[in-house]
């Protein structure tokens, strides 16, 4: 039973990481129709900036220091995302394939720059010592860092919900995801919402990047790639444009992957991919997605 709990909670912890990457991807695609391959770079930028902050704060890092590193990493990634959106994406308005291609280019460039500056090997990320301890939940010993991931993801989900529900920009985003043209037809420049969505997506990915570096035992430009792929899988299964859908799908995929890997090492990736293909063929709009107008 406690093995079951252990795998379940570590799976949810992994799902939390996927959600941090996927939430931004989902809104960016849902609102703007952009398949953002540069999202992995946002993760890397956040990870490396966060690493820099953490290493400046000394080899002994406490929780407030770590939180600061996460926030600064997130802001840097968000700022970078905004830059990309303003410089490149807006100039390719409504050329969706070209937008996707340009983000591929960005991911290559960022990967090369970071790899050139820091090398591709893992660099240890300074973390609070208690991350390495284990917490007893229902008889299972859960590594404490998983709790941090889950807490962060839940916080993000709530913040996202609040933004969408209670602010005007959130209203515009929700309407825009459903029917972009009609928002314009109400006299609202929906493109201003694009920048917000890109920034927020970048921020979430940046925070995710810091946490992923802890989970992976180090920062490296090479980690982002597989998280990007998983991010896409989560968004597609959860439903493009639906953040709750991404949350649900991320948890599901994290748990399924952990269980599959427990029984046969390496089976996890394969099962997830088959799940993706299955969902796409049976219910292409995903769990909570809408069929796009």
């Amino acid at each position, binding site marked *: 039973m406690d093995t079951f709990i252990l795998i379940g909670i570590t799976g949810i912890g992994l799902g939390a990481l996927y959600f941090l990457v996927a939430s931004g991807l989902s809104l960016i*695609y849902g609102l703007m129709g952009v*398949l953002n391959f540069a999202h992995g770079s946002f993760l890397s930028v956040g990870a490396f900036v966060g690493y820099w902050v953490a290493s400046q704060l000394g080899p002994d890092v406490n929780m407030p220091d770590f939180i600061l590193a996460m926030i600064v990493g997130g802001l840097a990634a968000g700022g970078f995302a905004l830059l990309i959106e303003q410089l*490149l994406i807006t*100039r*390719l308005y409504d050329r969706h*394939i*070209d937008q*996707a*291609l*340009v983000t*591929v*280019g*960005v*991911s*290559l*460039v960022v*990967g*090369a*720059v970071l*790899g*050139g*500056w820091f090398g591709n090997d893992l660099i240890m990320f300074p973390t609070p010592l208690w991350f390495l301890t284990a917490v007893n939940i229902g008889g299972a010993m859960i590594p404490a860092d998983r709790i941090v991931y889950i807490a962060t993801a839940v916080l993000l989900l709530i913040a996202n919900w609040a933004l969408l529900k209670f602010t005007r920009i959130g209203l515009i985003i929700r309407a825009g995801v459903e029917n972009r043209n009609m928002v314009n037809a109400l006299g609202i420049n929906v493109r201003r919402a694009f920048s917000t969505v890109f920034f927020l997506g970048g921020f979430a990915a940046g925070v995710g990047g810091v946490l992923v570096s802890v989970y992976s035992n180090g920062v490296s430009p090479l980690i982002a*790639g597989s998280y990007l*792929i998983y991010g*896409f*899988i989560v968004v*597609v299964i959860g439903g*493009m444009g639906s953040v709750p859908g991404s949350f649900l799908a991320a948890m599901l995929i994290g748990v399924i992957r952990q269980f599959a890997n427990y029984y046969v*090492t*390496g089976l996890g*990736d*394969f099962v997830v*991919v*088959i799940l*993706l*293909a299955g969902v*796409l*063929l049976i219910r*292409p709009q995903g769990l909570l997605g809408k069929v796009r107008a």
Partner: protein
Amino acid sequence: MLRWKYSRPLLALLLIVLAIAPMFTSLPLGKPGLQQTMAVAFIWGALALTYDLLFGFTGLLSFGHALYFATGVYVSCILINNEIVSWWLAAIIATVASGLLAALVGAASLRTTGITFAMVTLAFGEAGHVIVGRNFFNLTGGENGIALNADFVPQFWIGVFNTKFIYWTALLALIITYLVIWWVTESSAGRVFAALRDNEQRVQVLGLDTQRFKLLSFVISGTLAGMLGFVMLIAAGSAAPRFAESTVTIALLLMVVIGGAVTRWGAVLGGIFYSFASTRMQDLTQNDSLESIPEWIAGPIAEPALLLGLIFIFIVMFAPGGLSGAYYRLRMKALARKHS
């Protein structure tokens, strides 16, 4: 009129030069090093062309093309190493297997379109990558792949001094691929592919079964990729998981866009250029000439992805037709001047 009247004769001349050059050991192409580089470049050029059929001509953005290439590599390697059939039969079986896989995956994936289609193909591609990487059934050799057993392969492909035969094989494969794709795109089926890319609804209105044509394009593309997989096996001497990575498909996408998605020779040029540039840049990093440049510039420059990524971004933003598109634009300007 858009084609320069000297382009075909010049191309034929170029081919002859490329074919004969390895026989003169004093020329650059007489050296095994360059021959190997060019052989790999030819394979990538041909592979880029197969991707061009899919993406540039039929408008199908697939992220899982590497799957069929890798299938060709691994199936032929496994068949040859285990002495199941002779090498040329292995090549044929690998090619057919890739085609069959493309037919199966295509039939499933093509029920979706656009971004969803891209994701499904990515999924299948990744599944393939996982299978070869994790050494399922102990067949695929895991992370390190499988080295090709040289005993079961004709001697003329083995050994450094026989590199020119690998070069010629690759060149031949490129020519065959080009001819097949030229024939397909010029045929009436090819016209339908182009129409599908531009406006699928109109093709449906004409009463044509768009699914069948898309699948045809998918299968032809996958089959040729499988054949090229066998050629790559010969050139590389081993089957490795890197041939199944999504980065391969992304590289093909880059090649096609840089070269120019709508033209055949553009895609080939893009592939050759990309492959050549990557290899040369990797050599450059081992070279001392970079020492004088400050570390923070030299580091990134050494990564091929930087320059290629920047070129790619530039082309997508400012020259969407790629190199061949730019060529035709210049040509039209020249023609306009001539006639005014």
